[in-house]
Each structure stands twice: as C-alpha cells, then as structure tokens.
C-alpha cells in the first residue's frame, strides 16, 4: 500500500464577493501520508478552515481548482453521491465551533448514531446503540447513557466538542481533519483527546490533519507542519526542523509569540491577516507586515524553495529577515 494518503495539487478555493472571485486557499500543494499527523498553523483568517472544508467539499458556493486526491480518487471532481459515501466514513472532520455544530433539536445519541446509520447499514439497532455509548465513553463523557438522550443546549462547550469528536471518529476514518479539536477543552481532556487521535492513527494507519493555534499541541502531535499565511503555504517542514530552524519571517514571528523559557520578550509582528478582498495578490504577501525589511529582497513571484530535503519556504526574503528589536547582527541567513 502506498504511504501517500492524500495528495493535494495546486488547490485554489475562491469565493465570490460581488462580481469577483477571491482565493481563500491559493495554490496549495501538500501531501499527507498514512500514519502521519500534519499540523497546519497560521493566524486567524489565513485559510486553514477554508482548506479543510475544500478537502471535505463542504463549501456551499466556492470555486475549487486543482486536485485533491484521496487514495487516487480526486475529491475535487467527485460526485455528491460519491462524496457522501466517503464523508463520515473514510474521511471525516472535527469542526472548529462546538457551539453551533450540533443540531439543537436532536438528541446527542441520535446525532452520533446518524453517522453509523449512514455507513454501517448492517449494524443492528442494539449494536449501534452500544457503539454510540462506547464512543461517548471514549471521548471522556461520564454517564453516556444519560447524555445519549440529552440535547446540545444541555451540554457545556467542552462536552459538545467531545460529541463532535465522537461523530468524527465513529467510523474510524482513514483521513481525519481536526480543526482546532481541543480549544474548548481543559488540559486533562485535551490530553485524552490527543491520545484518542494518536490511537486512531495507529489503529487505522490513518492520516491526520491537525489545525491548531496551539504550537504546544503541534510540537507534541505533528510529524510535519505547514504554516499558512493569506491562503498560501509559506513554510512546510518536519516538526523538528520547523521548531529548530524556522526560516520564513512569518513562522519565526509565530514561534516567537509563544513565550518559552529563557526568552524574555515576545516578538509579535504587528498587524492581522487582511480580509480576502484586501489581500495582496502579487509579490510577497507578508511584505507589508515587515516594512523595515528592504523591499528589494522579496521575490517578484514568490515560490516555495526546498532549502533542505523536505523543508520548503516561500520567498527569498527570509534570508534577510530580522526582528526590529534585535538588530541586524542576529540575522540567521538561510542557506539559499
């Protein structure tokens, strides 16, 4: 069996605003192997969820270009009925917002049960019930029989998030996309959920896409990490390389914004990701946020360069980047 589970080639997802299409995911290519956790990090608005939704083909109105191959099947071209066979079964997703992702008028148990009904028609009612109880138990919900017949509004945000996780792992997917799966959870439950994801990976030889703001979780879970900015991947590398030798200015500022031991100040680069309509579409998209760097060091049309095997970084500007407070002498030149 090929180790490659998901291959995304030149994926561009655009939304229509007014008469124009604006790309929220811009020419993204990446691979997820079996038994691998790919972390995706990036600020709010960088297109992480848009990418996840594109893979699941859950966007209502979006133009999708490029290829999304899951074990050879191109999801970008798959019919709705083919997608329905895959979604919830081989391919599933944990949603970012636990408060709105559950049907308010449906019992918790029925909502988990639905995904079994859809993909495990041979299971008996009793088997399905037992499986739902087992799943609730797995995600750390106490009193699963009671919670089974509760409604979403009776559960806390953390409980709801765990229900969403239970739905996503119910049929043991081959590819699990987890969009901020642990934000609403306290530390113990978070550890339990991360364990659960690891178990799924090992048991099913599954690939995991883990989207998160939490670099601690990335360090703990991910094998490789992709950094997204303004819809593009600006850097991708295995987790050790990325944490030890981050190159792209954006990656470096992200890593610098986590307070770690022995570091007395945070370097947070000012500004936010601009809205889709206001994104720069040519040149280095990050240039505007590092105005103290000479403009001439940016590429005209920044590409991903493989600096060491498996370590890609976009634009040449990273070789000349320094944090303003630190001064030029501390620049680490990348080996381009």
């Amino acid at each position, binding site marked *: 069996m090929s180790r490659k589970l998901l291959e995304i080639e030149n994926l561009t997802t655009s939304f229509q605003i007014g008469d124009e299409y604006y790309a929220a995911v811009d020419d993204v290519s990446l691979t997820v192997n079996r038994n691998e956790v790919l972390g995706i990090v990036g600020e709010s608005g960088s297109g992480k969820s848009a990418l996840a939704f594109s893979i699941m083909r859950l966007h209502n109105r979006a133009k999708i270009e490029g290829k999304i191959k899951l074990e050879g099947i191109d999801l970008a071209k798959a019919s709705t009925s083919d997608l329905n066979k*895959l979604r*919830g*079964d081989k391919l*599933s997703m944990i949603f970012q917002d636990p408060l709105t992702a559950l049907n*308010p008028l449906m019992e918790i148990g029925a909502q988990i049960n639905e995904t079994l009904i859809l993909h495990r028609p041979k299971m008996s009612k009793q088997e399905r019930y037992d499986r739902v109880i087992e799943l609730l138990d797995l995600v750390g919900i106490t009193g699963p029989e009671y919670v089974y017949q509760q409604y979403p509004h*009776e559960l806390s945000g953390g409980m709801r998030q765990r229900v969403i996780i239970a739905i996503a792992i119910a049929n043991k997917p081959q590819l699990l996309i987890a969009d901020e799966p642990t934000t609403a959870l306290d530390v113990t439950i978070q550890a339990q959920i991360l364990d659960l994801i690891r178990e799924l990976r090992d048991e099913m030889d599954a690939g995991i896409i883990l989207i998160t703001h939490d670099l601690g979780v990335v360090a703990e879970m991910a094998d490789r990490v992709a950094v997204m900015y303004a819809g593009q991947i600006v850097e991708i590398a295995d987790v050790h390389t990325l944490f030890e030798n981050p190159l792209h200015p954006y990656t470096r500022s992200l890593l610098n914004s986590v307070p770690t031991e022995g570091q007395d100040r945070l370097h947070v680069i000012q500004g936010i990701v601009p809205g889709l309509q206001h994104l720069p579409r040519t040149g280095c998209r990050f240039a505007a946020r590092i105005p103290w760097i000479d403009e001439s060091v940016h590429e005209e049309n920044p590409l991903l360069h493989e600096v060491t095997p498996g370590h890609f970084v976009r634009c040449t500007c990273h070789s000349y980047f320094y944090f303003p407070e630190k001064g030029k002498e501390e620049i680490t030149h990348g080996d381009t």
Partner: protein
Amino acid sequence: MWKFIVRRLLITFPQIVLLSILIFLMSQFMPGDALTGMLDPNVDQSTIQEQRERMGLNDPWHIKYANWVSGLVQGDLGQSFRFKMDVSELISQRMENTLLLGIVTLIFTYLIAIPLGITSGRYNDTLLDQAITGYTYVGFATPLFIFGLVMLFIFGYQLGWFPTSGSVGPGMVPGTLDYWISKLKHVMLPALSMALIQTVSTVQYLRSEIVDTKQKDFIITARAKGASESRVYNRHIFRNSLLPIAAFIGWEITTLIVGTVFIEQIFGYPGMGLLFLESINMRDYSVVTALVLLFGIAQILGTLLSDIILSIVDPRIRIK
C-alpha cells in the same frame, strides 16, 4: 415543560382580567346603556331614573364592573335588544359557524403554506421560488375583502360552484350527513378565500426559516457525516424550520379573527364576525361588548397556544 406551561398560564390570567377591565371601561363610554334600547321613549324620566337605580346603573364603575364580571362568569353576557334574546345564546349559535370557518381556513392555510414554503426555501432564488415569492407579494398587496368579492363573483355567481351566502342550505335537519355536507359547501369558498390571502405570511416565514436553517453549521455537520441532500432536508432542515411554524398557529388564529369579520360580511356567512358588524350598525352594544371580549380572549389564548406548542416541541424551552 410543565413548569413553563404553568407559569405561562399564570401570566394569562391577569392578561384576561386587564382585557375585561379595558372592555368594560370602553363599554361605559358607549352612548346609551342597557336601558336605552329597551324602553318605550314615552315613559317619563322619573320612572327611567328609578329603573336605572334599581338596575345598578348609577353605581360607581368598580361596583358595576364587579357585577358585570360575576354575570360573565355565570354565562350572563346581557341582553341583545335587537334579537330580544340572551347574548350568550345568540353568540353560541354563531360561534359554531365561526369555529368551523376558522378551522377549515387554518387547514387550507397550512395545506398551501407548507408545500409552497418548503419549495420556495429549498430552491431559493430559482424561477419556482420567484413565482412563489411573487404570489406572496400579490397576497400581501391584495385587500382581503376585495379578493373575497372576486372569489364570490367568479366561483359563486359565474361558475355557480358554491353557494353565495348563508352557512347551510334551507330545510336541512341538523345532525344529518346532508346537513354537514351542506355546511362544508357553504364554508369552503369563504375559507379558501381567506386562506389564500392569509397563508402568504406563513409561506414567507417558512421560506425564510428554511433559507436560514440551510446555512447553519449543524447542516454542514450533517453533510460531513455523509447525509444525502434529501436526508439533510428531511431530517435536519425541515424539522428545524417547521418548528417555529407550529408555534405560528396562535398568531394565525389572531389574524383569522380579523379576517372572519370581513369574510363573513362578504359571504353573508352568519358567524360572530357578521354578528359583530350587524350589532355595531344596530347599536346593539351588549352584543358588541361581549364579542370584543371574546375576540380578545381568543387572541390571548392564541398566543398561549403558540407558547405551549413551542414548549412541547422545542427541547430548549422544555427544560426551563
């Protein structure tokens, strides 16, 4: 749920009391009183005064109110000077007709609204949706009494499919099958006329509920489970959109009351609405007062019904 319903019922009581006070005060400002219509104008003033005193018509208002209410509770709504009979008896005759008209109208309203609303909401911004939305605009713009007249003219007079007035054919024996068939025939056209106009707000409401629900996150969750389009609609969208519609029924009843007044007049249908207009014309104030009170209570009960239905079907309220 029971807690909610009990609390809701407790609020209803003062509402009704307040309503009765208002209506009582209003009736006090109406020209004339219970005696005006009854007496021969040739009787001399002192006799009238004596009579007034005896009947308690000179008492302060709160005593009169208390008397009135205790009469109401015992089913005594006063006398109709025009029909020379108890108002309660007069109204109960008419109430049966209005109830029938109301129920048939409600059935038509939902029979029209649910398929149209669902189609329009599901296929929003298609030609079909535009046609349905067009109908709702026309419905909103058309006054009920003009539409009723047109319906009466076409289906009653021109085509002769339905009787043009009354609530039952002459010479029918109450209780027989023929009697009920005749009643239904009489109620059909007014009910349909009213439903065709009044349903448009329900159609629009249902449409916007569906369009709204379609964009909810939990619909994405359902799709992510692999639910087919029809399952997404049947299990998730319609269920969640029909719920507020179920609660709409109370509101529907309140608009129905206003509607019956016009429709009964146009179709010469002897119900409470027609009685109301007749009594106003004849200055039969005891009847008018009783009807206003009943209409008001029906409105209050209508909203009560809505809230109770909602509390039964919506688990979010059921708990509180």
